[in-house]
């Protein structure tokens, strides 16, 4: 390295290292700002990214209902269609048998299904307690739990409502099940109209209480085995939910093909819950961007003020340097050099601390961990350098205007 550059670095570094109190304040301002920036960026990139991924795989986007007047379809149809879609396109599928039941003598809708498949399809459902681990355990909706005063670990009695002759009110499909807006009303009307005559009775344990804010809150989820035992009839599905990783026209085409290939069912694409949630994520992100801009402005003011104080403090030194032959350019380069180093050190500290902060916030608020993104870390350092350099510009302009003759004249 040429001796001039070496002395330049030596001057900048000793100015920072040997005049710590002031410099530490400026560096702290940069570091705190960079921490906030890095944390915000990490959270606003990583959390929505994870959420979006989960939401994309969450919830059904195609429903299978019995065609025509039929009240159910064969369980094998779900597997056949799942095979047709293939493992690449299929995120999850679950067939559900909805039946009207009495829970501790109150009428509700029971949903018999492969509960593991249902869990995979709805990973973000909030369950107090656990998903059922096997037969004899059920998941009950929050409304049901409240009405029958059941808690996790309690035992409840399930019994069938007697079917009337026509057979289309008692075991009537509750509309489109999980996603139908009127499913709950219909099913509740159905069960309340029905005669409370019981046939079989089963005692089951409540493993968890489900809270979705939707129709599911009024359902009881139990395994297909428990359901068959309760109905005393071979398993049949009233509805099947599919999550398929295609959207729009492609999905409609797929539904049409299924309709044609399987006349006993009718396939219909439905809107995902995730769509509206994606908008919320977008808004969350915009909010983060606005906060980041404010934080950047605050660092700028902080660093600028400190730099201003530093220049005032170093008037004599600047005058002296000019008297020794420093031209305006050297003065600018020296002070901007200090700004760059301040930004670099503060930025590196802040980028790392910011990731830690993002981790803490994410764990506490979003209950998930975030990943470190090299781009965010580098971006934070670059932004810190940029802002502290920019903030040094005004003070540096002032430094250039210092008149050596006045400074050296005396105290």
């Amino acid at each position, binding site marked *: 390295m*040429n*001796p*001039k550059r*070496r*002395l*330049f670095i*030596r*001057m900048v570094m*000793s*100015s920072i290292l*040997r*005049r710590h109190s002031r410099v530490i304040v400026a560096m702290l301002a940069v570091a705190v700002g960079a921490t906030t920036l890095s944390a915000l960026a990490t959270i606003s990139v990583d959390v929505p990214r994870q959420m979006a991924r989960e939401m994309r795989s969450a919830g059904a986007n195609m429903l299978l209902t019995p065609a025509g007047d039929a009240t159910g379809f064969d369980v094998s149809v779900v597997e056949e269609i799942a095979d047709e879609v293939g493992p690449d396109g299929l995120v999850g599928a679950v067939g559900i048998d909805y039946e009207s039941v009495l829970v501790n003598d109150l009428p509700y809708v029971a949903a018999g299904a492969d509960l593991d498949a249902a869990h995979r399809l709805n990973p973000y459902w909030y369950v107090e307690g656990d998903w059922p681990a096997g037969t004899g355990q059920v998941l009950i909706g929050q409304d049901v739990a409240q009405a029958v005063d059941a808690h996790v670990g309690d035992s409840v009695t399930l019994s069938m409502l007697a079917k009337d002759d026509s057979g289309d009110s008692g075991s009537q499909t509750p509309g489109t099940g999980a996603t139908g807006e009127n499913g709950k009303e219909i099913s509740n009307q159905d069960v309340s109209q029905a005669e409370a005559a019981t046939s079989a009775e089963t005692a089951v344990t409540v493993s968890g209480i489900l809270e979705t804010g939707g129709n599911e809150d009024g359902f009881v989820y139990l395994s297909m085995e428990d359901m068959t035992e309760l109905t005393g009839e071979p398993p049949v599905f009233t509805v099947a939910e599919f999550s398929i990783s295609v959207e729009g026209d492609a999905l409609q085409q797929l539904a049409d093909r299924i309709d044609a290939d399987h006349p006993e069912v009718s396939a219909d694409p439905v809107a995902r819950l995730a769509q509206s949630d994606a908008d919320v994520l977008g808004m969350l992100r915009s909010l983060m961007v606005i906060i980041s801009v404010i934080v950047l402005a605050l660092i700028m003011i902080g660093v600028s003020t400190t730099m201003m104080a530093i220049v005032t403090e170093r008037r*004599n*030194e600047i005058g*002296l*340097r*000019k*008297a*020794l*032959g*420093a*031209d*305006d350019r*050297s003065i600018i380069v020296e002070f901007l050099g200090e700004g760059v180093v301040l930004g670099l050190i503060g930025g590196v500290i802040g980028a790392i601390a910011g990731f830690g902060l993002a981790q803490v916030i994410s764990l506490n608020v979003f209950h998930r961990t975030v990943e470190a993104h090299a781009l965010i870390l580098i971006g934070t350092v670059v932004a810190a350098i940029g802002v502290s350099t920019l903030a040094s510009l005004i003070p540096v302009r002032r430094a250039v205007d210092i008149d*050596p*003759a006045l400074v*050296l*004249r*005396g*105290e």
Partner: protein
Amino acid sequence: MTNTTSDLLRLTDVSKIYGDLHALDHVDLTVRRGEWVSIVGPSGSGKTTMMNIIGCMDQPTEGTVMLDGRDISKFSGFDLTQVRRETIGLIFQQFHLIPHLTALENVMVAQYYHSMPDETEALAALDRVGLAERATHLPSQLSGGEQQRVCVARALINSPKIVLADEPTGNLDEKNERIVLDIFGQLHAEGTTLIVVTHDAWVASKGQREVRLDHGRIVETTVHDDAGAGGDEPAQSNVVMTGGTDQGE
């Protein structure tokens, strides 16, 4: 005395006016190459003002300043910086070192702006003022006398044509004063031009010529024996009045 080739510096009818205060009032002064000139005068008489103009840190309101064959009185700030860097070594009334740089680094700063920092050369300069051992000390770890010696080392590091010293010994004890003056003697012997502002009669007597300022005018010029540079006693002097008496207020 007005031989252009041997003149390093010539002030012609120079005035510096602040509002209605004439800090310098129609000053004429010529300094030959290699000459040692002492400037004396009461406080506020314009000594520092004159040094600043000669040192290219200030410009006269009126008059011309020829330095090394160039008229610097009309130079721009940038050109003045250039001339200052190339031709002048400055020693200030206060010690003026950069507080966060070591003695050695302070000397190297002058090299940095002049040409190329050279640690060996800078160390040699510190050695010359007897501070080789204190090279890595910060100014706050040096005594006033030592700090001023660092300033002297810094002023001569680039071998300037002219050294301007404003009260270089004003704050020094006798021992440090002697060290500084010895170095001035050596510089003079090497042919460097020296202009030294001082209140001290003994320091002033070291110069070949002593110029007295009062109210911005040169009121008296004393020519000392050339031998004066070596002796301890004030040398025999030859006083020349320069017409300041009738004009002086």
